């Protein structure tokens, strides 16, 4: 029933006719990022259930964003939600590559699975891989595209906040490098 209502309210061919190319690309990027996180959810669940839940939530949010954009829901609220949810994802990503996250399980030798009687290494930052770097770039591109959908002062406030986030990343990185001993 609801799908019939949706189809009547937002006929697909009408929506396509009125969407900009920017939104089209944003839909693809949100869907790609959502699928990437959905794909990675089982692995993360096995490693650390909290991260599995986080990945599942990200996947739902990003696929939901893709759906909303596809249905021409491009209000400021939707766009802002899309931007900030992806900023949260990027922030957690950066933090996880700089330090071990609170509650993160310790790792067994060379990443070997846990087994009774083994000791393990302290929890450590995750490595940087091609797949997660791809997801990161897609999310950054998505944030930029969503910014272009904002108007005037709202956009200015958001870009200023992003800049402060970037500066915060740098400060956090310096702290983590010093505390981790990589800077002597």
């Amino acid at each position, binding site marked *: 029933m609801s799908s019939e209502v949706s189809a009547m309210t937002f006929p697909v061919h009408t929506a396509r006719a009125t969407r900009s190319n920017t939104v089209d690309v944003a839909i693809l990027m949100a869907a790609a990022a959502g699928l990437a996180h959905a794909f990675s959810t089982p692995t993360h669940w096995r490693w650390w259930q909290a991260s599995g839940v986080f990945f599942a939530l990200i996947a739902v949010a990003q696929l939901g964003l893709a759906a909303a954009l596809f249905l021409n829901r491009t209000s400021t609220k939707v766009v802002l939600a899309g931007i900030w949810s992806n*900023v949260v994802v*990027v922030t957690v*990503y*950066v933090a996880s*590559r*700089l330090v071990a996250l609170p509650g993160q399980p*310790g790792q*067994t*030798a*060379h990443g*070997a*699975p*846990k*087994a*009774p*009687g*083994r*000791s*393990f*290494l*302290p929890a*450590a*930052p995750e*490595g*940087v891989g091609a797949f997660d*770097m791809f997801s*990161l*770039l897609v999310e*950054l591109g998505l*944030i*930029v595209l969503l*910014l*272009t*959908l904002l*108007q005037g002062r709202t*956009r*200015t406030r958001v*870009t*200023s906040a*992003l*800049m402060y*986030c*970037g*500066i915060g*990343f*740098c400060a956090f*990185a310096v702290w*983590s*490098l010093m505390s*981790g*001993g*990589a*800077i*002597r």
Partner: protein
Amino acid sequence: MSLSRRDVIKTGVFAGAAVALPAVKLAGVGAATATPFPETLLPKPFTRPFSPPPVAVPYRKDTTCDYYKMSMQAVDAEILPGYKTTVFGYNGSVPGPTIQAVQGRQVVVRHINALPAQHPILGYTPWTSVHLHGSASLPQYDGYASDITMPMGGTREDGSVCVDGEYKDYHYPNFQPARTLWYHDHGVHHTAENAYHGLVGMYTMYDAEERALPIPQGKYDVPLIIGDAMFQAPFTDAAGVKRAPLLFSLDDQSGHWGNVIMVNGTPWPIMKVEPRKYRFRVLIATISRSFKFNFKASTGVAVPYQVIATDGGLMPAPMTVSSHRQLGGERYEIVIDFSKYAGKTVDMLNTSPKNNINYANTDKVMRFQVGTVVTDTRNNSVPTTLTKKRDIMNLTEAMVAKDANGQPIVRTLRLERSNGQWTVNGTTWEKIIQSNYQFVEAQPLAGTVEKWIIQNNSGGWYHPLHIHLVDFKVLRRNGQPPMAHELGPKDVVYTGENETIELLVKFDSAGKYMVHCHNLVHEDHDMMTQFEVLEPDGSKCWDDPMISAVAKDMSMEALDVL
């Protein structure tokens, strides 16, 4: 709507930081751990004096047994002149002191894990399990990888801390014929790091037959424990001590190859010898490197030599060769006659087998400076027959046990890399752990002979395949007779690129034992499985490697009489 220049800059700060910082962190960590010691500052080959490892002194003796106490601990060694390197030693010695045993007299070694709670650079907890390689020890004293002994303060997987550290007494029966054995760490997933940092030592066993031979003995019977290492860029610590830590790299888990060749812990040493025959017990204790040795005199001529013993002891007859290849875990006893080279030098060289990573001086091993005076002319020959008592060398395919269908029992072990892991028949040690140590690759009966085929279908790497507990006979290599130097009892076989090796294996006693690649990085990641020898009636062995003799807490050590 397009972004203004100001918006682009502000967003760029965010995006740039998000992309660049993780990469910078990785690059920073890599630089801090991977800068090697400058090759130009390494010692010149053949300038450092040779020294044998010290001989272990028993803690006490009784009528049937010698008792030793070994403390595994971190010590500073001066491997590179002028620089301190933190290594792991047995009783502070790297390599560890040589234990000299006599057939028929048992040995008990109390191994105490006094290592730090965490490796200062690599960060892992250095738990240990000591394997006496070449000994048919009971399963619980064989250095089963998962039968670990914890250091003080080491953290277990469940988060608990081993407050006092642990020790374990290892019992060695010494009923086998004379041979060159060695003890080394076998702790699960950390064998490579622990052995690389020095947890290796020789164990020589003598018997009446070998003692009666006129072959070189005493000071003319010399251990050569050959290893390789790489060092980090030097620095001066807070106490003003110049340091060059060991550099360890897994190289995508393919192995670790150093640029410094060491003999008994000394880089490219020079040894003074008399112009007579010497017997060298050559042990390769590298993590991954294999060698093809040859000897060359300063006159330019190649020096032939005789191989008189292999992993499991004396060969039936000496084999004269001009070179031989040897890899991790293999032991060969060779006799070199220096009598023709008085006043000259003889170099031990390495024409490296393929798939090693070589550096400027990895083609050199050590030099012998031949004197002009012989101080002892006894035991200066090699008889044409060394032994007739090694049953293993008399095995034939006709002796292979038959299965229920009357067919000879032939088992194949495929050594391969699968999904980024090193496997034996697709099995890793993780499978053994997940089965609570019940999964076994094979269940031969004690007292039977089986034919095992070792396959390496890759051209990209070689594997030293080691079977615990047993001695075996190399029957064929790629359908051809074995190499001359392999014509003796073995427990490690060089499984080269695209090679298939046929072995005859006799199982004399029951229990669960490991079989694995002795490229220790492969072993750790996770090319190791196990077999279980059943009692002749088909029942399981009472002794269990994980249960029958576990490590004890150090708080009990003073009360536990050795």
